[in-house]
Each structure stands twice: as C-alpha cells, then as structure tokens.
C-alpha cells in the first residue's frame, strides 16, 4: 500500500452543539483522488471543516494525523504551518477565497509571503497554463469581482497549488458552476494533481463526478462513512442499502 | 440558549415598561395631591411626607404633577408613534409594491425631510403652529413617518420579488389581498421593532418642545414644561427640576432598552 498521508481515527465532530460526525475512520494515501459523496446534512463538509480548524466544527473525540503527526490537538499557531502550506483548501464559493476588490497579484503575493515563501512567477505561469488561464499578467492585474465564477474558481485552485501542498481538500468546488465549466475545471484540477503529485479529497453531492474522477469513493450518510472502497467496486457492487438507493436515484446518461 | 437569555431580559424590561404605563394611566389613584391646586402657604417645600417630591413655585405637588405629566407624555408618545407607524407602513407598502413615479416622488420627499435634523424641523413647524400638544405632535410626526415608510418600503420591495407573492398572483389574488395577507404580516415584526425604538426619541422630542414652550402649555403638567418652569429657581428648589428630569431619563432608558433587546432577540 502507498504511503499514508492523512489518518482520521474515531473522529466525532459537533457542529453548532449537535453531533454531526460519529466515529469516522478514514485514511488518505499519497497522490490519490478520494471522493467523499453524501447528501446535504450528511456531515461531509463538516468533516473537511474539522480538519481545517473551523470554529463551528468542534472535534469532540478522536484524532487526526498528518504524516503520522497528530494535528487535531496542536495549538492553532502550530496548525497554521500545516494549513495552506501542506494542506490546501478550496471551497464552493470562489468569491469567499479572495477579497473581491483587491488586485489578484497583491493577494497572491500576500498568501505566499504569509507562509514565508516568495512568489515563483514561473511556477505560477505553469499552473496558470495548465488551468487554461491565458494571459497571466492581465489576470493578476484584475480584481476578482471583474471575473466569472469559473475563472475565480480556477484562480482559487491556482492559489492553493502555488504553495505546493501535499493534500488538497476541495469542498463542492464545482457545484456552483455550469456542467461544461465544471468538467473543464475538474479536468484541469486532475492535470495539476498529476503534475505536482498532490492527494485530493473532493467532497461532493454529485456521485457522477466522483464516479468519473475518483480512485476511491467514500459514501457518507447521517454522519458516518457507510461505505468506502475503490470506485469501480463501490459503483458496481454496492454493499450498503443507502449506497444502493443513491445509485438508483441518480439520473443516468451513460447507458445509452 | 442566547435567545432564552434575551427573552428573560425582554420580560423584565417590558414588565417595568408596563408598570410605568399603568402608574401614569392611573395617576388619579397614585397621586397624593391634586396636581393643579396652588397653595401660597406651601411654595417650594422640600420633599416631605405630604409632598414626597416637594412642591414647586406655586405650591403644587411635584410628585402628582410628575405622574399626571407622565400620562400626557406617554399617551401623546404612543399616539404619535402609532399614527406615524400606520401612515408610514401604508405609504411604504404602497411605494414598495407598486414602485413607479408615485414611489419615486414620495421617497424624494422623504429624502428632503431627512436632510434636516428632526428637531430643527419640529421646532420650526411647532413654532408656525403656535405650540400646543397637537401642534407639537404634528411637528414631530412630519418627519417621523419617514423612517417607518422607508423601512416598510425596503421590506416590501424584497418580499414582492419572492416566489410566494408570484404564487399568489398565479392564484389570481388581488393586490389589496396580497398586501394585506402576505406583505403586511411579514413586514410587521421589523417595523414594530422600529416603533419600539422610536418611543424614546419621541419622548425626548415632545418634552424638548414643551421645554421650549412649543408643546404643552402650562398649567397642564408635562415633564418638559415642568423642567422649563422650575429651572428659573433651580438653586432654591432643585427637586422641582430633578424629579421630572429623572422621570424623563428613566422612562426613555426603559423604552430604548426595550427596543434594543427586542431587536437583539430578532437578530439572535
């Protein structure tokens, strides 16, 4: 088996004082694409939030390890050296990631500086071209509010890749986008992932997306991971009742 | 959790407010003396058993006058806030719902009225109307409805574009029905909260106008006019100023605080 990157052991998380994640165990391996699929309220986003120290998602039990170092009980200050730098996060609304009125170049510089690095223009250019973002200088001179949602999401991806994380957490990054844009963005994300050998955890409600890009899939239901395994195995031979129902309910296009 | 705490606060504060109202409404019962009887033998008496708040320059009982004055102030304030609320809400809902030229015109008038400090407009208008309680109320009301109108308008405007209003249209409901059944009950909570917060300022306004001699005319009791009358001899009989002033400050604090906690409750 590959190297373990992230290890979640018996994790329980409370969101707003009610327990939404119960005893979850999850391992993420180096360089894999793992999709966590669930409906609204299943706790999939809360899981991501608890890794990133969101103040609403309180860990009430269990531990999280990153490269065998426990990161669930260290101080916020120490955690800052992991977040952004070694563990990246991209959220559903790209607008939330940037100040809409500030020039992107300033925001990029600031992000990189806050992690004690210098902005490597050449590397950024490579990332931008992989993301099909043409004319990097012009984009860096513009402000997020001037750009489209798909464009902003690509830039958010670029911003998290410039820090060369080992693990990238993506929370519903395509659900605010149109189908054609969503496919383009996920394609580019995978290409970047291969270039830079990053492990990706993608949280989504869309089983279809997961089916097409994931190496492994986890199905989350009512705060628990009810089924986990290689994508083809989960899709072709689902074990849990909920997974079977989900597979039945998803509108299908492939079997034409 | 937080909401429960605020709820307890609301209950306490509104109990105090209701007590204040009851005490003034039943002033006849609580007042130890007749507020209008002058007595040459008991002018400017310090607080004592018979006159707990002392007497004024004409020998009238200050406590009784504070209680009767409170009735005038509180009743006039409530009446004024209610009328402004009614006019403002109706105008605001019509403007927000229909929009168009009518809306633009009224909102420009509102802007103009808001461009002047409320008290300056009130003093000018009360002066033109030659004082009197009615005059003072009109003077304050002329700018007060505007805040209600603007608030109702903005809430109506955002409601109007909601799907349930469109659904009512597809159900063939008339504009009047939609405004009465769907819009009014939904804008009521925020506008009522605004009304509560307006009570304090209105009281200051009314008492202020009376203080300037543009509101309630003596001998009728009113806090502002009592302070105004008694300040001439404040060094000899400070109680004649102190007690109506304290009553004003206390009442305003109670109603302002009530408005604040209700606002907090709605936002929590």
């Amino acid at each position: 088996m590959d190297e373990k990157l992230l290890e979640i052991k018996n994790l329980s998380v409370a969101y707003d004082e009610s327990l939404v994640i119960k005893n979850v165990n999850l391992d993420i391996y180096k360089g894999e694409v793992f999709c966590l699929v669930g409906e609204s309220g299943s706790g999939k986003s809360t899981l991501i939030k608890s890794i990133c120290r969101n103040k609403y998602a309180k860990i009430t039990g269990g531990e999280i390890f990153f490269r065998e170092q426990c990161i669930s009980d260290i101080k916020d200050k120490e955690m800052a050296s992991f977040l952004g730098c070694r563990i990246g996060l991209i959220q559903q609304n790209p607008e939330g990631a940037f100040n809409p009125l500030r020039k992107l170049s300033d925001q990029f510089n600031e992000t990189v500086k806050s992690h004690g690095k210098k902005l490597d223009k050449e590397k950024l250019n490579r990332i931008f071209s992989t993301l099909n973002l043409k004319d990097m200088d012009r984009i860096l001179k513009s402000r997020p509010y001037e750009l489209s949602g798909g464009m902003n999401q690509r830039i958010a991806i670029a911003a998290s890749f410039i820090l060369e994380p080992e693990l990238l957490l993506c929370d519903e990054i395509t659900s605010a986008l149109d189908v054609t844009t969503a496919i383009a963005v996920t394609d580019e994300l995978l290409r970047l992932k291969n270039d830079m050998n990053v492990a990706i955890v993608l949280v989504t409600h869309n089983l279809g997306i997961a089916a097409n890009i994931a190496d492994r899939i986890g199905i989350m239901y009512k705060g628990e991971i009810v089924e986990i395994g290689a994508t083809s195995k989960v899709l072709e031979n689902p074990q849990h009742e909920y997974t079977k129902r989900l597979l039945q309910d998803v509108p299908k296009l492939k079997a034409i | 959790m937080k909401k429960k705490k605020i709820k307890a606060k609301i209950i306490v504060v509104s109990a105090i407010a209701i007590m204040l109202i009851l005490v003034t409404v039943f002033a006849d019962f609580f007042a130890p003396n007749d507020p209008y009887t002058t007595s040459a033998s008991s002018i400017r008496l310090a607080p004592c058993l018979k006159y707990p708040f002392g007497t004024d320059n004409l020998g009238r009982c200050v406590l009784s006058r504070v209680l009767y004055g409170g009735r005038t102030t509180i009743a006039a304030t409530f009446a004024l806030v209610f009328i402004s609320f009614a006019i403002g809400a109706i105008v605001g809902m019509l403007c927000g719902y229909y929009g168009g030229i009518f809306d633009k015109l009224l909102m420009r008038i509102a802007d103009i009225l808001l461009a002047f400090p409320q008290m300056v407009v009130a003093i000018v208008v009360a002066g033109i109307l030659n004082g009197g309680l009615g005059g003072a109320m009109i003077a304050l009301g002329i700018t007060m409805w505007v805040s209600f109108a603007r608030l109702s308008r903005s809430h109506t405007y955002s409601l109007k574009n909601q799907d349930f209003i469109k659904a009512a249209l597809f159900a063939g409901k008339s504009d009047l029905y939609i405004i009465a059944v769907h819009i009014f009950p939904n804008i009521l909570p925020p506008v009522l909260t605004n009304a509560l917060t307006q009570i304090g300022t209105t009281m200051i306004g009314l008492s202020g106008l009376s203080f300037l001699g543009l509101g309630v005319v003596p001998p009728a009791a009113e806090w502002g006019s009592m302070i105004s009358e008694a300040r001439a001899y404040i060094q000899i009989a400070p109680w004649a100023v102190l007690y109506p002033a304290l009553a004003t400050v206390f009442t305003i604090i109670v109603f302002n605080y009530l408005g604040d906690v209700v606002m907090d409750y709605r936002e929590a």
Partner: protein
Amino acid sequence: MTILEGKNLSKKFIDKDKEIAALSDISFTLEEGEILGIVGESGSGKSTLLKVISGLVVPDEGQLIFKGNEYNGQKARDTGRFLQYIFQNPLSSFDPRLSMEKSVLESGRGKKDLVRLYGILEEVGLNKELLQRKPSELSGGQCQRMSIARALYSGADILLCDEITSALDVSTQAQITKILHNLKDNGKLSAIFVSHDIALVRMLCDRVIVMKDGKCVEQGICEDLISNPHEEYTKKLVESAVRQSI
C-alpha cells in the same frame, strides 16, 4: 393536440446601457399530456422563456397561444387559470407565516374543496396532517411536493417547472420526478420542465429544447438528441453531462 404554443418569442433586457437579448426568436409547441424539457446552462434564457410563457415577463415580440387562443400580454393573474408555475426554491414559494393549508387553498380561486385537496396530496405522497404546518416545519422535498399539490389544486392544465429539483438532494429529486412521471402516465399532466441537468430531463421528457444565449440551439426527441447531437454546443453539453454521470 397542441395545448400550448409559442411563436418567435423575443425579449431584450437593458443592463448598464447594454441591450442583452435574453430570448431571441424562440418557437415551441407543447402537446397535451407531454413533458417538454428545456435544457441550458446559466444565462441561456431558459428561465426567462418560462417567465415569458407564464406572463410574469412580457415578451417584446412573438405570440403565445393556449388551445388556439392567443393570450399575449396576459399577466400571471389571468394566465394562472390555465398554467401554474413551480419555483426552484420550495421554501420561498410559501408565505412563511401562513399554514400550508391556507397557502395551497389560495390557488383554488375562492373554491374550497378539501376532499379534492386530500386526493391530490395522496397523489404527491404527502400526509394531510402536513397542511397544518408552516413551510419552515417541512423538509425541502415535502415543500416542493406541496408546490406541486398547489399547482394541481388550481385545476390548471399546464405546469411550468423551473429547476424544481436543483435545490434538492438526489433522493428527494428522484421522488419528485417519480411523482411527475406518475401524473404524466395518468394523463393528468402537460408540463414544461426547465433544468440544467440533461440526465434528469432524459428521465422525464419526451422532447427537449437545448438553449444557449437566448437562442434555441437544437430540439428534438430526447433520446435522439442525446445519442446523436448535431450541433457543436449540444455535443459539448452532452459530453460534459455524460462525464458527470454514471
């Protein structure tokens, strides 16, 4: 029999001094007992088309015909007699302060027939006790089924469904589509179903119109169009959708 027809519908909006053609020269027909799908991405004009058909938005040009009678310029209050609109967000489709019963009965235009309403609720799979609740006390799926019940109770001939499942989970979405399917099979439904999800449209509709930038890109039988798209955009759309489905 054609129940609804739109001919050469156009609508322009003015945004920051620029004219934007939200709809240009769209024509369509809806047969009785059929569900017509309209597919497009955001900004394609599919919602505007539905608003134009319903009378919420007046078109600049074109004709709207219901059962042979032109109804151009009629507002929602009148069109509501023969068509009903179901909105994307189920929660905001109901007055938050009213009980479901009050809201649903409104569409009966003054006629109150509880027996009929209970029958309709059964058809959409809702318990009649839910009528006493407020919208915030219902789940999204229950609320959306209530919207369908309200539309059916009005006695309208046509339902206009505007992304009615996109705010819902897949399993809830499946329930809603099942209800529409059953209604269609019982011959009680003629509907226009607007969605961004071509897989969903395929499950529900016979014919589909693909829209982009206010224009009709391609239209035809659902299966044919998906398996054999002619236009470049349709190909791209279908391909993207296939790659996001199982």
